[in-house]
């Protein structure tokens, strides 16, 4: 999948470009986000398009966080729909990720 990446104030902002991130496409997502993870340490995943994420999709995002943490970086999430936010809460992943309402808030959090 083609993941659009913007760089704003030293922070990479990658938009997850699908409505559903699940077993059918999470492998593809992991593969295509890898170059972004390799070339950045501060990453915001913009989930505004996402409407549903299953456990393999959540696992893919967790893997991103771990890869960045391992090299001293961090991953923040923004623009979660109510349904997607509920799925993070369901598995307690909202306690692992920093989640922000907007892209700007997430970028600001990196700067602070």
């Amino acid at each position: 999948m083609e993941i659009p990446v913007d760089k704003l104030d030293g922070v990479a902002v990658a938009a997850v470009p699908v409505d559903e991130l699940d077993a059918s496409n999470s492998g593809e997502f992991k593969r295509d986000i890898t170059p972004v993870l390799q070339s950045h340490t501060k990453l915001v995943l913009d989930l505004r398009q996402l409407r549903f994420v299953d456990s393999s999709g959540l696992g893919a995002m967790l893997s991103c966080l771990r890869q960045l943490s391992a090299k001293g970086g961090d991953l923040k999430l923004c623009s979660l729909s109510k349904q997607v936010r509920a799925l993070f809460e369901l598995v307690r992943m909202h306690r692992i990720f920093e989640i922000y309402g907007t892209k700007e808030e997430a970028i600001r959090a990196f700067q602070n």
Partner: protein
Amino acid sequence: MATQQCSVEDTAALQESIQRHARYSLGKAWCDLSARDRFVAVALAVRDRMLDLSLETEDRYRRSDAKRLYYVSIEYLIGQSLGNNLQNLGMRESCRQALINLGADLDEIEESEPDAALGNGGLGRLAACFLDSLATLGMPGNGYGINYEYGLFKQEIDNGYQREKPDNWLAHSSPWQIARPDETCVVPVYGRIEHSLDRKGGYNPMWMEWKVLLGLPHDMPITGYGGRTVNFLRLYSAHSSHDFDMGIFNDGDYFKAVQQKITSETISKVLYPSDTAGAGQELRLVQEYFLVACTLRDIVRTFEQAHTSYQDFPAKVAIQMNDTHPALAVAELMRILVDEKNLEWEEAWETTQAALAYTNHTLLPEALEKWPVALLEHVLPRHLQIIYEINRRLLEQVAQVHPEDKDRLGRLSLIEESTPKQVRMANLAMVGSHSINGVAAIHTQLLETSLVPDFYRLWPERFNNKTNGISQRRWLLKANPALADLIRSVIGDAWITDLDQLRALEKCAGDAGFQREFRKVKRASKARLAQVIGDSSRMKPDLESLFDIHVKRIHAYKRQLLNVMHIIHEYLSLIEDGRQPTAPRTYVFAGKAAPGYWLAKQIIKLIHNVGRVINNDSRAGQWMKVAFIPDYRVSLAEKIIPAADLSEQISTAGTEASGTGNMKFALNGAITIGTRDGANIEIREEVGAENIFIFGLKPGEAQAMLRERSYRPHEYYDRDSRVRRVVDAFRSNLFCRDEPDLFAWIYRSILDENDEFLHLADLSAYLDAQENAAKAFNDPAAWTRMAILNVARMGKFSSDRAVREYASDIWGIEA
């Protein structure tokens, strides 16, 4: 409201609406509609009215920010809805006239509606009656359940043997249901726990690698009598999160992809018959969790529409668990509050206990649900963690008071240390609830003293009794309109919403004119039932005979066998001793046996074989007939119960929690012959000992006999020649000439000291009680007086009374 007027305006509007639905919902001209189409068109027209009222009701609740009850039950035995809805809306006569104008007949259309058999028996029917009462009382209470595609199986009889046929009641979808896809719930199952740390370094168990089910709600509007309130029953269908798993599909395994979708949808495919513990365990566990998860997701969604702080939750939410099937609600609500809403454990626990309440429905220890720990961990790994933590805290609390009492700790523990280890769902329900209730006075007493005494000692304040009840709208006004009309002609119709008003009938009990009318109504009901019997067996019952009726699930503890023993006694007395029965009788049975319950199915065969011998013996012809009506269900019960003279409620004392059939029969003027069990005891208190035939062991005596192993069936066999002759008949092949020794197991089983249902301990007393009943029946004036007094004194057993008690003592909801 009761005398349903038929206004020209209502009739015209309804007729127009029916025709509109025929044309625009079904796309057919009225003259081209099939019988089912006609039912659907009428139902949709009626549903329109209900939806208007439903929106008004919801608006009323929202404006007052009412506390709401969520009644969670894995079964709802609804039966047919059209007649009940028309009656409660006051539209029946308008509808009848509208259909006459269209050249159709309302009775035929009502009869064509398939029963919604989303339940096995009493537990599900109780839930349906409670919904009727909640709506009639104007209380904010909705039901939550599963939208089974296949309800309880259809029963057919082949050479006396039960055969099961699937009941695909949703094959053509139900016109009463409205799907709400926008409120679909995501339900995770399976997976594993990943032990990680959160951003603050605290322990953070994450539930990973779960599979997703989707719960699609379907609402059935429930109209209260008078039409002021329309609540709903929300039933969830399970769906796959995708049409196909495209990952599997893309790998080329089309059939596996389809299979996965089918597996997800299997969750709500079929109602489990009762008494099938062990069969399909995993599916049943997922089914129970599916119900709980969907319900709680909906409760939280509704709560958050008007509130932000979970401190308000118990003031706005009451959740009643109808038996242990929804007991996972304890762990699920804790999971939501702790994991999703970030409450501290203690606050979450107080909130959970304050919102949840549990109704126990069984005294049979083997019927208390347990799930293997390994299975629960496999299906719900996070919930098992939570259950363990609840248990740790419980046992710590108990150990502070009883540090040396390891046995007590073992009994209270949520985990049974058996092989394999099991989670005790009743213990989970009790520890997580602020209220634990039994369903009849004796049942609650036995709950406290015998079934779970350790819990009672720990939290006596949580235990309370709520004797079951039935809706008089369904079981008298609708099922027996002729009796309802007769009662109305004498005392008016206030009893329809206040059953205590029936007391006013007492003054008519001895009135010869009223008695005559009462007997006329009973005879007409018997004639109607005779027609039903004739349709299934070609038998013609004598309408002057005593209709002795035993209808309920077939189960050893309900002792249909004891009834058959009386029949055999009467028959052998007639043909061997030449002693004619005191009164001619028609013995009527109906009921289903769980498909895997061999003994119960044998009892059905026995009833048929005994019936075949007796019904074909000319010597017995004028005295005895035995009928078994197949496929017992709510709509059939509505025809059977009004016709009963004698109501058989003869379970072993201390085994039936309450029973509600006993109440339905008495309300329709049948006299009970029964044991001191369940609500029979309270019926006796209400109607008076002289108006009921109570016999046999007391609950304490039966329990002591079992506990002390002092039951000696051979002593009863030796002592009473009547008993001996009946028991010997089972090994004589008298009733199984084509299949020798077919019933020899009964001979062995009832002479076995391990017969836990103590048949012979009660048989002599039962035969005597039956003789007394027959003598009483031979005096029509005295019998009719008893029957009228039974009707008059049934006020206590209205589900309106029961629901009011739940509302004030447990739920804290108001009209």
